[in-house]
Structures are given as structure tokens and as C-alpha cells.
């Protein structure tokens, strides 16, 4: 083993300083004077921007300054002597503060001796306490800049303004950078600490550049295109501009050109230097490439999401990872992930060759990088690389595989292709919670997609409409062990978010189990065994009943009990159970689930029992019997559900929402009644405006405003109430005719997909459309659409959709419906970006917090943030939906135990 090079170190202190012109020249390997880069033969020009002394970028060459080769030479700075000084954009604010707080005449801070003394004392105290002196300096600048005359020399102090990016004005008179520099030079060293500058490393006049450092070529390499053309880096382009203008400025000035021309060129030089540092400075147009694309200069390289910090240092591209489209596979375990063979052959796991695995490794190397499948199409892993003990890397090919296998030594490491059972991390972005990245076991299979079982959709928030996911192969034993213990899918069944299962049955699993258990259907033995066979069940068949001479059947509930672990006792109401009914009625309608010692005695299994987020049965198994048992149960229950539903058959279509004419008529009358009610409300509201009605009558018959509401608000409220009632009423009528024999209703009731509201909107009436929680008001000339009269406050004019989705919407209804729908889309778009930014800030604030062994929450500095985690020390993923203990459950179990003993 090589000695570890990543020993942790502690940063003692950081010092920020300014680069002085002398230092810039000292750093420089060469002065740069020509704007050209390469000559006609393609060789770099001396004292040009690509001078060979600035570092090497072409392999094989050696650096003219340090003599090292490409990877080793870090590159060397050059410099440009500016003909005239130029303000550095990054320091405009600091320069402004310096100018405002000091005297142009003597350079001293504009403070009286006593003020200075006070601030000095405060400053010294801050230094002793190791406190940030920034805010103090801000106060000093504020005090100093209010002075009218200099307390030291009595000179009048003007107002300093900054014009757009880099122009300073004193009393509205423009100051040239030279003048600014002269002023800054006068500021005495002893005043600098009070301006938050350390005179040992920084002088204010260095913020006005006289020398521009030219970054090494390694930082701005030129690329040779396929056509043989050279393409220069954006920074090089910018530097070319600077040198050109600098030269012209120098020539013109030396030739004694008119002041105007020199000033123009000076300003142009300022512009180029400004954009060289930051090409997004407010107030000046960004410098552009020939193609019109804005140049990416120094600031743009570092800043923001795509900048060096967030994109290359905090996050990096990694090896041993893969990304492809995902698709479902109900036959995999929830802990598995299906990997296409092509990916498996590319992704590798390092294996140390030692005595006990030597033959195994040698056989694998011998197979080479493209082994043939075993008979029956069984995948076999090969080896892509061998790392010999001396550190040399050998690529295994079809040609050399036998020879490499022959020469394999103990102590080498082979990079073996992925095989079944390898541990990988599987991830879908956006990674919003820790379940977005879980460990799976590999199963290599044909095809080109990653595959996983459907219960894993909710934690990843994945569907299969083209989603792609990432996969990372773990490279070390430690990592694998850690991932298996902490990140495996089964370890994440119970979510730390709400203390319930986040992984669970969805859609057809739920419908299937519901159909299997509700009202305990009789299932022919042949069909039952077929279902059991396809789920790979190997236990005993449930009790077989006989009916007549040749009909043998089993009960659906008994079939479900077969996969329930022993020792589970639970009582709860199904999702399908209508609210507000008595226990007796619930039992009678088979909605009260009773499980005794792993036997389903009554009730229907649906979302409430096994669903993701809600499943209490699943939760109970995970909590009482462990995650492995829960994973096994989940694998079985999903297969049983899909197995049964495939055998039984299950379809839904638009005629599931057919309702008889009688119901149609009933809904129509309800809507008519509502419209009349609304008209009446509007009339009673309009009464107030009617001059023909006496005040007394207005009081009697007019709409009465609700407490705290205006008349208009009251009207809207009342109308909204009526429209909501109407939609619910229509839904009630519709659902009255849609019973539990209806597949759509079954799905809605058992929680598989859809809701009763969806159905009533399809069958009955879509209802009131709303924008910002109010009826639709937007429009010109007191109406929403030209189809209505001005000032119409009636139902249909303000977005009430009386039609159902099935009958279809009228043009005006369709328009209102689109308005409501658009609002929903905009809201989600706004919400995601806003919550995303909020989450980023939260994570940055909390990332170093950790719960210590003594239950305190501390940050890396050891500062206590919370004395007991969550104030109660409870791990939410081990809590029962937030509470540490489910007392009701404990009591019922204790009661049962007592009864059993008695």
C-alpha cells in the first residue's frame, strides 16, 4: 500500500492581499508586447501572448522557464506594462470608500484626532477579540465621508460619485485614473487598518493598475480544431485587445497626439481591462466574440452554477458511473437494479488478487474483456485492466488475455467487470432527500435500460416516460459495507420524513390485492396455484374448499395470508372505508381489516395496508420484524397483486363513467337550481344600486354583507359556496350510480389511482374554475369574454363549468378551464425554482451539523446547536409517524397478551 497522501490538515489563517506592480513584474517570466500569438509556421512568437516561457501546453515540449514537461509545469505569469493606469473593476467600491473617507490634499482620514483615537481603540479591541473589523470600517467610512473640510489640513472635501462602472467624479468633475492613483498614494499607512486594509500587504494605489499580469498559457490553452485551425481561448482574445489598445495609446501619447484622442484610447483601454476581469459589469456592453457570443472572462469562469467553484470543485464528474433511461421490472426485488450488459462490461470493480481467490481471478482474466455467455445465455464477467504490484497498468485484450492470465501475480489488482450481487448506488435527480440515492444489488440483464421494481418509484419520484437515472459502482470494501448497511433500499422503507413507509405498493399492486381480499372471492384451485407459481411462492397451499363434485376453490383472504409473516396482529380501517360509519357496519361491508397472528380474518387490503406513504401493515412489519422481512413481504405482495390482477383481468375506459339518463337529468336540474340561486344572489346584490327601490326595501330585500366583508366579497363568497355545493351534488348523484362493481371506482376507493373527485368531474360536472382562489374576473369592459353581457355576474359568465369532461365543454367553458389550468402550471414552475433555491441555502447552512453520541447536535467547530436532537432525541425514521411509541398499539397488544394468559 502506498502511504496515504490525504492526511487532514487544518487551515491556520488566510490572508488576502493586493498584487503590487513590483510583485507583478517579479512574478513575470516575460514582458508581453506583441498582440500576435503564433507566426506563420505555427511557432509561438517571443514576447507574444503564447510565449514559450509562459508554460507548455503541447505534449513533448519542455517549458522554457522551468524545464518541466506538460503535466508538471504549472505555467508562469507574464506581464503587460500599461501605458496609462487603469481602474480595477473589482475594487471600485473600495476605491470609492477610500476617496470618500480621505482628504485629497493630505491623504489623511477625514476624522478629528479624538474620533481617530476612539476608532483606533475600538479597532485594537476588535483585534484582541479576533472579531470581524469589516462593520467597524464601514462605520468609519460613514463618519469620515460626512466631513466638509479636512480636520488635518483644512482643505475642502468634495462629494465623490461613481459613474457606471469605473469613472470617479469629484464635485461632478471627472477624475482620470492617474489622478485617483495619486490621491490613493497619499493615504498614510497608519490610516489603512481603519479602512480594513493591511498596509503590510496592500496599498490602496495598487487598486489602480499600472501593470497587468498575464496568466500562464496553461490557464488559457489554445485548441487545434480538426481542420488544423487554431482556436484561442476567450482570455487570450481579451488580452490581445488589451495589448493592441495599449500599444496604440502609447504610440499616440508619445507622438504627442491631441488630448481628445489620447483620452478616447485611454477609456477604450479601461473598457478592455474591465471586461477582461468581468464581462458582465453593469453599465457597459459585454465584449463579444466574432460570432456574437459574449466572452467568458475571469469572473465568468469562477462565478455561479457553471463556475469553477460549484461545477468543478464542490462537484465533479466521476468515473465508474453510468446513466441511461429507466424502465420497470416487476420481477426484480426492491433491493435489485437491472443493468444492461453493455454497461456491466464497461463498469468495473477492483479486486485484490490473493491466495484464496487466485484461481478465480486468473480464470476471469483469461476470459478477457468480452467473454462469451455460458450456455443458456448466462452472463459472465471479464476483466478490463490488471494493475500489477509494481503499479503498471495492463489493458486486457482479446489478444493478450491468455498471456496476462499466465503472468498474473499475487498482490496485483484486477478491474473486474460488474456481476450479479455487486453493490451500486442508484440516483435520480433532483436529489431532494436522502432516498434519492440508494444502494441496490446488481442484476445484469439484456436490454439497454436500467430496471427496478415499482415500489422504488415514490422515493426517487421516478416514472418511466423517459426518465434517466445515474448509477455509481462502489470501489472499496468499506464503501460497499457502509452502503449496504445505511443506503440499501430496504433500510429506507421507513422514511425519516414522517416515520412511515415511503417505499410501498402502488397502482396495480393495490388494485390487485384489493380485488383478491375484498369480500373474500372464491378462486379456483388451478388459478390460485397459477398465481402462486408465477410469484415463485414455495409455501403450503391455503385450505381448499369444495363445492359440488368437481369445483375446488380457495379464498382470496387465505391466499393473502400465505404471504403474511407470522406474529403480526393489526386492526385498522381500509382506505376504501367510507368515513363516519360504525365498526359494525365496517365489518359488515368488509372494510375493517383484522389480522391475527399473520392471518387476514376480515377486511380488504388496499393502500392503507400496503401503499407507499400510508401502508400501516407494511410499516408494522418493517418495525416489528425488521427491514429484511419488510422487503421480502413487499416483493411478495407486489407480485401477488400483479399476479392476481393479470389472471383476473382488469380494465377501465371512459364508459366506466356512463351514468343513466335519470342521473343526467338529476344533475341538470341541480345545475339549473344553482344557476337560479346565483341569479337571485346577484339580483339581491344589484338591488342596492337600483334608484327605483326605496331605501327601506333595500334594507329588507338586499344582500346582507357578512361580518368583516364588503358587499362584493359577500356575494362572491355566497356564489362560490353554491357552485361548490353544486359540483359536490353532481358528484354525489353520479357516484350513486357508480358502484363498487365499477373498475374506476375500485381504483379510486382502494387508493390505487384517481379520486372520486376525478370521477365526478368526468361523469357529473367539472365545477367552478378559479384563478387566485376567486371566480374568473379578468377581462376588458366589465366582462370575461365577449359572449357575455357587460357586468354579468352570473355563474357561466364567471367561469362555472356545468358540463362534465365526458359530455365535453362549451367554448367559453373550455376557455375558463384553460385559465385555471394555466395558473396551475405557472404555480408549479414558480414553486420548484423558489423551493430549490431555498433548499440550497438551507443545505449550505446545515451541511456540517451532526448528531453526536451524547445526542447533542453540533457543527464541525464543536459548537452546540441543539442540546438534544429534536429536543426529544427521537429518530423520526424509527418513530411511529412522529411519536416515539404507538401507545394504542402497545395497549391492545398487552390486552391480547393478558387474555391469552387468562
Amino acid at each position, binding site marked *: 500500500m502506498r502511504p496515504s497522501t490525504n492526511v487532514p490538515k487544518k487551515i491556520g489563517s488566510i490572508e488576502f492581499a493586493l498584487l503590487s506592480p513590483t510583485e507583478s513584474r517579479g512574478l513575470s517570466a516575460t514582458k508581453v508586447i506583441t498582440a500576435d500569438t503564433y507566426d506563420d509556421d505555427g511557432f509561438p512568437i517571443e514576447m507574444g501572448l503564447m510565449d514559450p516561457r509562459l508554460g507548455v501546453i503541447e505534449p513533448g515540449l519542455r517549458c522554457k522557464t522551468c524545464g518541466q514537461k506538460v503535466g508538471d509545469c504549472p505555467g508562469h505569469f507574464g506581464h503587460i506594462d500599461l501605458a496609462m493606469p487603469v481602474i480595477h473593476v473589482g475594487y471600485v467600491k473600495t476605491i470609492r470608500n477610500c476617496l470618500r473617507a480621505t482628504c485629497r490634499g493630505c491623504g489623511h482620514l477625514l476624522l478629528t484626532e479624538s474620533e481617530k483615537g476612539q476608532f483606533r481603540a475600538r479597532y485594537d479591541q476588535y483585534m484582541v477579540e479576533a472579531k470581524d473589523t469589516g462593520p467597524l470600517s464601514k462605520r468609519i467610512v460613514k463618519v469620515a465621508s460626512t466631513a466638509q473640510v479636512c480636520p488635518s489640513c483644512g482643505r475642502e472635501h468634495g462629494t465623490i460619485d461613481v459613474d457606471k462602472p469605473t469613472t470617479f467624479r469629484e464635485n461632478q468633475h471627472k477624475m482620470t485614473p492617474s489622478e485617483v492613483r495619486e490621491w490613493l498614494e497619499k493615504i498614510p499607512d497608519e490610516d489603512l487598518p481603519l479602512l480594513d486594509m493591511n498596509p503590510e500587504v496592500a496599498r490602496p494605489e495598487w487598486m489602480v493598475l499600472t501593470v497587468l499580469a498575464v496568466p500562464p498559457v496553461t490557464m488559457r490553452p489554445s485548441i487545434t480544431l480538426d481542420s488544423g485551425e487554431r482556436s484561442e481561448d476567450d482570455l487570450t482574445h481579451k488580452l490581445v485587445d488589451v495589448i493592441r489598445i495599449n500599444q496604440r495609446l502609447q504610440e499616440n501619447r508619445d507622438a504627442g497626439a491631441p488630448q481628445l484622442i489620447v483620452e478616447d484610447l485611454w477609456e477604450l483601454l479601461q473598457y478592455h481591462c474591465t471586461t477582461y476581469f468581468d464581462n458582465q459589469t453593469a453599465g457597459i456592453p459585454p465584449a463579444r466574440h466574432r460570432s456574437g457570443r459574449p466572452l467568458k472572462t475571469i469572473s465568468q469562469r469562477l462565478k455561479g452554477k457553471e463556475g469553477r467553484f460549484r461545477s468543478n470543485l464542490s462537484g465533479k464528474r466521476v468515473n465508474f458511473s453510468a446513466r441511461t433511461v429507466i424502465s420497470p421490472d416487476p420481477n426484480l426485488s426492491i433491493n435489485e437494479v437491472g443493468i444492461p450488459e453493455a454497461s456491466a462490461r464497461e463498469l468495473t470493480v477492483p479486486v485484490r488478487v490473493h491466495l484464496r481467490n487466485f484461481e478465480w481471478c486468473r480464470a476471469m482474466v483469461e476470459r478477457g474483456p468480452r467473454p462469451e455467455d455460458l450456455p443458456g445465455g448466462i452472463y459472465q464477467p471479464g476483466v478490463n485492466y490488471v494493475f500489477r504490484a509494481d503499479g503498471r497498468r495492463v489493458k486486457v485484450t482479446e489478444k493478450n488475455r491468455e498471456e496476462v492470465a499466465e503472468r498474473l501475480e499475487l498482490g496485483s489488482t484486477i478491474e473486474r467487470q460488474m456481476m450479479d450481487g455487486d453493490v451500486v448506488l442508484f440516483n435520480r435527480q433532483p436529489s431532494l432527500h436522502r432516498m434519492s440515492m440508494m444502494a441496490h444489488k446488481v442484476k445484469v440483464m439484456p436490454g439497454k435500460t436500467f430496471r427496478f421494481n415499482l415500489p422504488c418509484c415514490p422515493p426517487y419520484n421516478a416514472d418511466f416516460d423517459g426518465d434517466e437515472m445515474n448509477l455509481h459502482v462502489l470501489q472499496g470494501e468499506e464503501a460497499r459495507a457502509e452502503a449496504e448497511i445505511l443506503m440499501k433500499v430496504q433500510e429506507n422503507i421507513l422514511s425519516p420524513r414522517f416515520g412511515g413507509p415511503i417505499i410501498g405498493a402502488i397502482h396495480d399492486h393495490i388494485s390487485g390485492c384489493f380485488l383478491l381480499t375484498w369480500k373474500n372471492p372464491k378462486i379456483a384451485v388451478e388459478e390460485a396455484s397459477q398465481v402462486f407459481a408465477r410469484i415463485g411462492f414455495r409455501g403450503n397451499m391455503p385450505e381448499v374448499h369444495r363445492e359440488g363434485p368437481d369445483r375446488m376453490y380457495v379464498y382470496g383472504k387465505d391466499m393473502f395470508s400465505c404471504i403474511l409473516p407470522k406474529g403480526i396482529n393489526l386492526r385498522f380501517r381500509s382506505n376504501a372505508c367510507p368515513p363516519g360509519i360504525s365498526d359494525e357496519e365496517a365489518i359488515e361491508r368488509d372494510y375493517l381489516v383484522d389480522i391475527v397472528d399473520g392471518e387476514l380474518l376480515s377486511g380488504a387490503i388496499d393502500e392503507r395496508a400496503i401503499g407507499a406513504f400510508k401502508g400501516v401493515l407494511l410499516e408494522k412489519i418493517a418495525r416489528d420484524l425488521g427491514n429484511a422481512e419488510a422487503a421480502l413481504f413487499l416483493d411478495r405482495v407486489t407480485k401477488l397483486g400483479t399476479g392476481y390482477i393479470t389472471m383476473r383481468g382488469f380494465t377501465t375506459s371512459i364508459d366506466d363513467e356512463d351514468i343513466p339518463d335519470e342521473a343526467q337529468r338529476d344533475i341538470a336540474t341541480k345545475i339549473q337550481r344553482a344557476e337560479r340561486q346565483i341569479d337571485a344572489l346577484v339580483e339581491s346584490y344589484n338591488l342596492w344600486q337600483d334608484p327605483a327601490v326605496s331605501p327601506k326595501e333595500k334594507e329588507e330585500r338586499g344582500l346582507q354583507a357578512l361580518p368583516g366583508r364588503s358587499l362584493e366579497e359577500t356575494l362572491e363568497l355566497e356564489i362560490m359556496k353554491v357552485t361548490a355545493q353544486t359540483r359536490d351534488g353532481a358528484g354525489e348523484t353520479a357516484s350513486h350510480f357508480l358502484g363498487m362493481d365499477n373498475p374506476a371506482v375500485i381504483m379510486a376507493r382502494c387508493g390505487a389511482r384517481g379520486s372520486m373527485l376525478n370521477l365526478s368531474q368526468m361523469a357529473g360536472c367539472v365545477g367552478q374554475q378559479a384563478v387566485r382562489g376567486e371566480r374568473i374576473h379578468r377581462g376588458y369592459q366589465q366582462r370575461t369574454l365577449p359572449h357575455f353581457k357587460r357586468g354579468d355576474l352570473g355563474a357561466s359568465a364567471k367561469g362555472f363549468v356545468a358540463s362534465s369532461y365526458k359530455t365535453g365543454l362549451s367554448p367559453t367553458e373550455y376557455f375558463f378551464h384553460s385559465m385555471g389550468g394555466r395558473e396551475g402550471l405557472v404555480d408549479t414552475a414558480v414553486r420548484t425554482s423558489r423551493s430549490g433555491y431555498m433548499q440550497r441555502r438551507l443545505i449550505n447552512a446545515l451541511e456540517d451539523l451532526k448528531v453526536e453520541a*451524547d445526542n447533542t447536535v453540533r457543527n464541525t*467547530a*464543536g*459548537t*452546540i446547536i441543539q*442540546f438534544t436532537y*429534536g429536543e*426529544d432525541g427521537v429518530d423520526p425514521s424509527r418513530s411511529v409517524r412522529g411519536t416515539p411509541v404507538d401507545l394504542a398499539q402497545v395497549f391492545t397488544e398487552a390486552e391480547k397478551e393478558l387474555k391469552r394468559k387468562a
Partner: protein
Amino acid sequence: MSEEPETVQVFNVLNHELVPVHEVLDEDEAKALMARYGVKEDQLPKIQVADPAARAAGARPGDIIRVVRMSPTAGKAVAYRFVVEY
């Protein structure tokens, strides 16, 4: 620069039902606390002397205040604050 804690108060915030109990630890308690958590004063959460609750409790810079408050998760939760000047 340290100010004397106000002795005459118009209204004692600690008597308000929404303000949790604040009490100053004596020296032994403070030592025991620091030993229990293995921390120095500056690793504790801070409270300003000027904080109305700290003033009402009569705290001086360098003291440690015990805050006992009602918690939705734990019923009663105890926290400590190190009193600082600024």
C-alpha cells in the same frame, strides 16, 4: 462598557406566558454543565446581555443561562445560553 442590569423594571418579560423560564446558573452548575458536554463557553449558543430575557434574569456577561421551554416534541426542553456582551 458593561452596563448594570436594570433593577427597576416596568414589566418583567419572564412573567409573560410566552417567555420560557430563564435562570442564571451558579458557578458549580456552570462547571458541571461544561464538563457534561465537554465544551468551552464559546461553543455554547449565545445570548446578548441586552436581551430582554437575559436582563430580566439578571445575567452578566460570562454567565450561563438555563432556558426551560415547552416543546412540541418533548414536552419540556432544556437549553443553555452563554451570555455575551455584544
